[in-house]
């Protein structure tokens, strides 16, 4: 079946699922309409027009609580209604936006499916000579695969995106593609490969005067250095990146990174001050959530049981279900740290095992290693007593 992920998602909703008002069903119908547009072009017959009208009515049944997707799906119809068959690059714009919307709702499988339609459309003989668009679509597809833990696919699509970005002659995009590959290598635990790639990105960005790209690459290399237990080197990279970027969300991420360095160096008071400020004032909700999770870690390090409970309650009040899977994993890991420290070692061990499997599923060797190290430490400590 052509749009299987959407069919599966509807089936997963269970017996109470209703088509009316369903954004999934409307999305499925819109994708089928896009297929028809590709095959037949803009509607001409009255029968076709009636079909589009019915589709619009279906979209209108999506409730106000999901007005954003209602609007996006309506825009797909608007654009297809006026686009010429030669306008494929313009026509896929709303679909790319729909994919990004699904990404923001953590619906990675569906977003990946939408991107797969865009990539196969753009990168086909009838598709496009707009290499920038093709490269962006491949990189986005790779990002979905990466988030789903399909690291081999992610690597393949990032590499394809890099090749096409290089052909397009767009330096920004080419380096962005290399940063995606660097992040993948880091997550796979290939520190040497990731660092070498990021070194070239940083040098090239500096040479071509691309400070935003340089800042992104420095942030990632700083994370790598922090994971390699080189916090002082990491501080240098994070600080330079901070001075280079006016991007508020990246600056908030960097402040969190600097606080993480302070934590590793035992400067817990400084780390707490930064994380508290981020938890209260960060514009980026993910930065706020990360700060809260890091405050849980700091409470455990300081042995402050009351703070740990209070912070963990704050984290639980946060809509973590809407957050990226990696953040969820970190949150549960530090919660298990707290259980280990203050409550029950055996309960914590069971959680570590589950989380280690989850990290493996996500293809994140770095986090898997962090959890395994903790698990091994606790097991070694408990062994003599058993």
């Amino acid at each position, binding site marked *: 079946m052509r749009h299987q992920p959407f069919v599966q998602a509807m089936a997963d909703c269970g017996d109470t699922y209703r088509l009316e008002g369903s954004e999934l069903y409307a999305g499925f119908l819109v994708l089928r309409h896009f297929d028809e547009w590709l095959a037949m072009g803009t509607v001409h017959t009255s029968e076709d027009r009636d079909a589009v009208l019915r589709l619009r009515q279906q979209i209108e049944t999506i409730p106000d609580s999901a*007005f*954003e*997707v209602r*609007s*996006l799906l309506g*825009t797909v119809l608007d*654009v297809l209604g*006026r*686009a010429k068959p030669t*306008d494929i*690059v*313009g*026509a896929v*714009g*709303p679909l*790319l*936006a729909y994919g*990004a*919307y699904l990404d*923001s709702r953590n619906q990675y499988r569906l977003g990946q499916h939408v991107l797969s339609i865009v990539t196969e459309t753009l990168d086909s003989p009838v598709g496009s000579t*707009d290499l*920038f*668009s093709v490269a*962006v679509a491949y990189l986005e597809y790779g990002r979905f695969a990466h988030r789903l833990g399909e690291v081999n696919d992610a690597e393949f699509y990032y590499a394809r995106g890099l090749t096409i970005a290089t052909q397009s002659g767009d330096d*920004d*995009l080419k380096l*962005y593609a290399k940063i995606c590959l660097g992040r993948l290598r880091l997550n796979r635990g290939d520190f040497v490969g990731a660092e070498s790639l990021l070194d070239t990105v940083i040098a090239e960005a500096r040479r071509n005067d691309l400070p*935003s*790209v340089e800042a992104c690459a420095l942030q990632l290399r700083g994370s790598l250095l922090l994971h390699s237990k080189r916090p002082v080197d990491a501080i240098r990279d994070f600080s330079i990146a901070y001075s280079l970027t*006016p*991007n*508020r*969300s*990246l600056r908030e991420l960097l402040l969190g990174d600097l606080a993480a360095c302070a934590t590793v160096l035992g400067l817990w008071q400084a780390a707490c001050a930064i994380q508290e400020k981020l938890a209260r004032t960060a*514009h*980026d909700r993910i930065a706020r959530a990360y700060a809260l999770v890091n405050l849980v870690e700091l409470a455990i390090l300081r042995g402050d049981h009351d703070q740990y409970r209070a912070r963990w309650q704050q984290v639980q009040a946060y809509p973590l279900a809407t957050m990226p899977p990696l953040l969820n994993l970190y949150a549960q890991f530090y919660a298990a740290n707290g259980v280990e420290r203050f409550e029950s070692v055996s309960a914590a061990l069971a959680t570590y095992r589950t989380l280690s499997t989850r990290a493996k599923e996500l293809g994140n060797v770095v986090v898997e290693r962090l959890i395994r190290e903790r698990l091994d430490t606790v097991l070694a400590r408990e062994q003599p007593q058993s």
Partner: protein
Amino acid sequence: MTKQRRLLLVEDLGLAGQLSPALTQAGWTVQTCTSAREAIYLIKQQEVDGLLIAATLPDERGDVVFYRLSASQPQLRTHTAFFTRTSHEREVVETTQRIDLKIPVTPDQVVRTVNDFYGTSRAS
């Protein structure tokens, strides 16, 4: 007293720096950013009355960002203009049916465009 209108300007720092003073002088509160990612974060923080955006951003196509932003803030469906640099960008922007400001543009031209969003001719 007229309410100050907010404008989100998504462009590289060079052009944004040239345009911001004229827009501010024309009575707009201008917020600038350079990437798709930041534009999407900013739009979640506050409502804006107009959007000026590059047709191509470092990490995304401008039209894709426009569709996302206007889905959450419907006034932007009409109150948006693109900066284009190539004929290909112009073709893509054409499918959005929004205003195409062809680079090079003058600050006065941009001020007139955003003032026309509201059918007003502000004194600059």
